[in-house]
């Protein structure tokens, strides 16, 4: 009897707290939605003012500031929700990422006149993509917008379509994620004397700035030399080659040690460590050859790319046999992935003839993509899935938007390799 009373009392006291917690989160998420709608509206208004009355500089600035205020409010709420570790973080994360991308798109409108805004836009864009780094969920740019947005008489239902139309400049940059490690407070490096220099770049990317990089590098070094811990930060850099140089260390060969090579629309991880009296900056490689052996249970190929065995050294079959075996593995992976995606939303796959033709075309497109250099030079598997899906859509339903379910389907197939 006593136990019953205690349990009842506990439920009586705990339930309101739990409900209050839930409603509190709901209120915050509602607030985020409101701010997001305001951002979207402000972005549309900004377009009108920008294209209709270019002279009103102060008005444009006001719009930018309004968007920035909303974005910072949304990010603050997002941080609060992250810290309170609620379970359903997908919605707040999508809102936060979308708001950052809208601000990036606003910056891009202005960028042809103020080139440093390309860089600024990239930092927002990468910050948004960063939120999906360790997640298997569909990134927000590939999802439908809560409300379609009309820009220059075209209605966009997804951010990726809007970015492809209005923000292609973002793809000229690459993201470099940097980890500083093993630095000690006794190090005699003077971060204030560092310079970050571009020494080679394709002509098309020379107009873009990389002003923020040096400041970020210096502050990361200063922080690690004080705290003696590892430090993590990212840079948005136009495609090209760069290095860090010190004004106080007079060795013209040292920049080779601190050089980084950035390819457009890619995410790379770099590590900086001390080396003798200077530093070394090297990539953390993440590339893997597609592992057909692992992906297919009934694989009959040569074991090319077999994990850990390095069996790609022991090739025995000819190219045609290998290609056929690889294609059949992709086919199997596609068939099994179809069970996990709502395929009714992809073209007209209920029709058995279209379905079998789709399977052939999709497998071949995936096979061509993963054996090309592009497979190792994309942002992530989601980006590969987007590129492959675009190609498939061009063959099945040219001119129409790429179905999100198709992107998901291709992503699931790529995950197997």
């Amino acid at each position: 009897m006593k136990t019953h009373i205690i349990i009842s009392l506990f439920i009586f006291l705990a339930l309101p707290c739990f409900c209050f917690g839930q409603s509190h989160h709901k209120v915050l998420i509602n607030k985020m939605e409101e701010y997001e709608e305001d951002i979207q509206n402000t972005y549309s208004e900004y377009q009108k003012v920008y294209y209709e009355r270019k002279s009103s500089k102060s008005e444009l600035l006001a719009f930018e500031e309004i968007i920035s205020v909303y974005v910072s409010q949304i990010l603050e709420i997002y941080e609060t929700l992250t810290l309170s570790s609620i379970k359903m973080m997908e919605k707040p994360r999508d809102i936060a990422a979308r708001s950052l991308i809208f601000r990036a798109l606003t910056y891009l409108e202005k960028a042809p006149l103020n080139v440093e805004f390309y860089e600024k836009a990239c930092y927002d864009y990468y910050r948004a993509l960063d939120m999906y780094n360790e997640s298997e969920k569909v990134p927000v740019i590939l999802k439908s917008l809560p409300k379609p947005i009309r820009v220059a008489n075209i209605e966009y239902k997804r951010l990726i379509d809007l970015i492809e139309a209005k923000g292609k400049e973002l793809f000229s940059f690459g993201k470099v994620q940097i980890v500083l490690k093993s630095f000690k407070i006794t190090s005699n490096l003077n971060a204030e004397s560092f310079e970050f220099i571009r020494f080679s770049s394709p002509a098309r990317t020379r107009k873009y700035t990389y002003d923020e990089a040096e400041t970020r590098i210096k502050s990361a070094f200063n922080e690690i030399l004080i705290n003696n811990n590892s430090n993590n930060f990212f840079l948005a850099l136009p495609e090209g080659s760069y290095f860090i140089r010190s004004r106080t260390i007079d060795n013209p060969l040292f920049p080779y040690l601190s050089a980084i090579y950035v390819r457009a629309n890619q995410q790379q991880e770099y590590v900086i460590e001390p080396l003798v009296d200077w530093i070394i900056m090297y990539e953390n490689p993440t590339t893997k050859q597609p592992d057909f052996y692992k992906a297919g249970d009934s694989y009959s190929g040569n074991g090319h790319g077999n994990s850990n065995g390095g069996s790609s050294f022991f090739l025995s079959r000819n190219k045609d046999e290998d290609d056929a075996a690889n294609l059949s593995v992709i086919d199997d992976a596609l068939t099994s992935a179809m069970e996990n995606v709502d395929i009714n939303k992809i073209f007209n796959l209920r029709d058995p003839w279209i379905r079998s033709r789709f399977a052939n075309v999709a497998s071949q497109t995936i096979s061509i993509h993963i054996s090309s250099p592009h497979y190792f030079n994309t942002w992530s598997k989601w980006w590969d899935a987007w590129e492959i899906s675009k190609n498939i859509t061009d063959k099945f339903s040219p001119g129409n938007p790429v179905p999100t379910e198709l992107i998901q389907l291709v992503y699931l197939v790529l995950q197997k390799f």
Partner: protein
Amino acid sequence: MRFFNYMLIIGCFLCLNTDATGQIFDKSILKRYEECWSAKKEITLLDTVKVAMSKKKIEEHFRRHDFIQTFGCAYEENDIQQNSIRAVYRAIIQSTRNRNVELRDDLLAALRANPPRPDNLMREYSIYVNIPLRNGVKAARYEIKILDLVAVSTIESSVSVWTRIVTRFAYKEDFNKVKETKQVESEFVQVMQKAQEILTAIERKKFSSMKKMLSIGNVADVYPETIDELSFGDSMHLFDEHNQKKTYLGIYLGKGIFASETPDHGVVVCKFGEERLYGIRIDTNTFRRTTTIFAELNYQAPEIILQCLFIKFGTKKPQGLPSLDSI
């Protein structure tokens, strides 16, 4: 016309001596990196320890009281105390390997709590070890006496340290339980010798002899999964981005630096990420360890040698990544 020719020659000369920033650098700077093992006109730590090992034999009274002598050395840190700790640690580990016993205590923590240094009098330690028996293990007290702890300036580091220690079980009954005792004075020195040969082979671009020394053709014992797990001498495959079936061999040296075959540039020493300059990529699924001794004894190639090798091979690299279409 003659003036034009002179200008052309001067232009070519400037091109050949221009660094990545477009500035002209003195050729003498490059000369500094021509001979990595003798650039500083100092001796190696390996030679120093080998001389000590040949001259310093265990004293008779120690030998009579069941002590064994081992050596250790270190150069990895730029601090005498840290190197002293590492050197003594290596000598003690060698002793336990010789007696086939396992550490029971956290030896590094014990050494850090009372660090040995060449200039202090911390010369005796006592730890517990496990003697393996048929029906389990037996704890035994183990005595350590540091006889020499010397800081020297060598090619590897200006604060290299070598040490000579003697060790024994505190109680005779424990001594009697251990059947065989090896008399290896320092496996780490043997490893340093092998590593130096490998690094010299790379310096002279003798890639095939390096492959032989590392038994690359053998079945791997360990498959590291990330670059943090890589150790000196681990191998990897790099594949051509355009034709994935063409593969090249890479050997990891340390601090993100590795030696690799390339499609058009022969053997190069580069850092992770630079392989993309040659249109090849590392297959992270193919990290392999065929020679485990370097990882077992935590060997790390001297940073000064790695830096030198990297710079020596560095000046002829392409300056930017090839475009995706041209790969």
